[in-house]
């Protein structure tokens, strides 16, 4: 495959679990600064696609190129270091640590064993923590233990932890699941802000929310792409209505 201008180029990606193809010859291209939403019914393979990109699951065939660098051969931490961040479906934060510590631990310096032993809390680190804390609306509760946060705040904190690493590609798995209407609005604003200088892939079921954020929508069904394009076009698509949106 030749080099492209896309941030992420997924080609012929296939993964099979005991013969069941969860993702089947998938092609997907993400532009710079694009916010792509992936929708589809349960079991369509949405989460599996994210797992494949971030290295959690190894592909059976096909290629994933991030800035023209092949990711399928890299281990998870190398993919992260290349600039891909991934948020899990259920909030994954360190409940025993404070908000500040959660963010600081995610700072991309001192990632080796000895680097972490002699890591210094420099002004630069603190400035980055405060900047991100402000971004995720948590600058007033930096010293709260993360276990005490509300569900929505935990989701934001995890997004903040990813932002600490300044990833060029951010992947979010159902970021507004379980959030109140107000929190959903705030999250939509947050996502619109953070995709200014990076590409974002979001998996989401909430159509109202998708409308607020999506540049382009990809509909997955049985591991294949059913439709792709602008939100209104996809919503009008007969096949999409049949398998997913309903009449």
């Amino acid at each position, binding site marked *: 495959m030749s080099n492209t201008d896309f941030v992420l180029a997924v080609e012929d990606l296939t993964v099979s679990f005991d013969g069941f193809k969860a993702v089947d010859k998938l092609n997907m291209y993400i532009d710079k600064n694009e916010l792509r939403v992936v929708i589809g019914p349960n079991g369509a393979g949405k989460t599996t696609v994210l797992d494949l990109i971030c290295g959690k699951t190894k592909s059976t065939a096909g290629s994933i190129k991030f800035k023209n660098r092949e990711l399928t051969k890299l281990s998870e931490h190398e993919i992260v270091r290349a600039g891909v961040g991934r948020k899990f479906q259920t909030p994954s934060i360190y409940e025993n640590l404070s908000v500040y510590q959660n963010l600081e631990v995610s700072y991309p310096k001192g990632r080796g064993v000895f680097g*972490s032993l002699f890591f210094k809390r420099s002004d630069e680190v603190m400035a980055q923590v405060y900047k991100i804390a402000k971004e995720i609306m948590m600058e*007033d509760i930096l*010293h*709260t233990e993360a276990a005490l946060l509300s569900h929505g705040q935990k989701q934001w904190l995890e997004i903040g932890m990813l932002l600490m690493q300044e990833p060029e590609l951010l992947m979010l798995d159902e970021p507004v699941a379980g959030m109140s209407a107000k929190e959903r609005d705030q999250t939509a604003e947050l996502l619109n802000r953070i995709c200014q200088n990076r590409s974002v892939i979001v998996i989401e079921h909430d159509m109202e929310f998708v409308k607020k954020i999506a540049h382009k929508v990809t509909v997955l069904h049985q591991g294949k792409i059913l439709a792709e394009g602008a939100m209104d076009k996809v919503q009008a698509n007969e096949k999409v209505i049949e398998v997913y949106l309903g009449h």
Partner: protein
Amino acid sequence: MNETLSKILGGKQGAIGLAILAAFIMIVLPLGLDPFRLGLIGKYLTYAFVAVSLVLLWGNGGILSLGQGIFFGLGGYGMAMFLKLEASDPVSTAIQSTPGIPDFMDWNQLTALPWFWEPFKSLPLTILAILVVPTIFAFLIGYAMFKRRVGGVYFAIITQAIALILSILIVGQQGYTGGVNGITDLKTLLGWDIRSDSAKYVLYYVNAGLLIACILLSRYVLSSKFGMLLLAMRDKEERVRFSGYDVSNFKIFIFCLAAMISAIGGAMFTLQVGFMSPTFIGIVPSIEMVIFAAVGGRMSLIGAVYGTLLVNFGKTMFSETYPELWLFLMGGLFIAVVMFFPNGIAGIYDKYAKKVPFLRKLSEETPKAKKAEAIPAAPVETKEAGVKA
């Protein structure tokens, strides 16, 4: 530099806790006990090294090793081999068919010193071996397991199996290791009689000093970013991995460090007790050490020392009167601690110390994480305060 110092001491509260511990084991106990009882305490304090290592590994890292006896034993055997060679000079072993080699080798028809005993003729090489051999062994085990992401209960079982294998190996290779009796009749260290009362005092203080040094080193590790990552890994390993860290390297390192600390304890054990045997390597001692750490508080380096002393004190008391009941009692103690006091003695202290005005004042001066107060909007889950000291 000041920042590093305060990290090592663990802030004001940590420094006071450590000072109290140091005063207790270095002043109160030596003044209050006769040499025999103090010798027992010295022996218990060598187990405390292992308990401290388990606080790092298990309490903070979430990696339960049921085979720390391996490293305690390797350290102990290293020291015993040196002392045995010194005790086996040609003059005192003149009646053997091969003078100049340890007596058990002679009984087993060995006619020359095995090659791996050679380095133990030199004290510097012995000290090096005590520190390095267990660490390398831990590295090999850790590399094989953590790179394949073996963890949790599987790791615990495998370490236990290795402890058993090693003790069987030592028992089986009598000619090379002294077999089931271990290495006995240790007399002098560079000509200095380690069995005299004065030597026992000196060794007791060396041991106490090394223990404090290991606690300080562990404090530094836990207060660094590495320590934060350990907690993070224990909590959400996947999140750490997907934040760009090679989780296995961190686990290997802490396992190696725990092994080295345990080995120092083992070497000090040999020096103070005067022998080393496979009974300190196998499954039972390895599990006992975990109980020491659990009773003391698996998150607390200082608690681990008190836990070790307390359990061993109980063991001595009860096994003098009801030897057959002790194992049941210890099993019960372990279950009770896990069920009712998951943070052990240190947890009880944290919970109740706050009710004593003087102690409360102390602990409030170093706030760890502010609770609830400043969370706007959304309702806050009311979880019992669980910040680890």
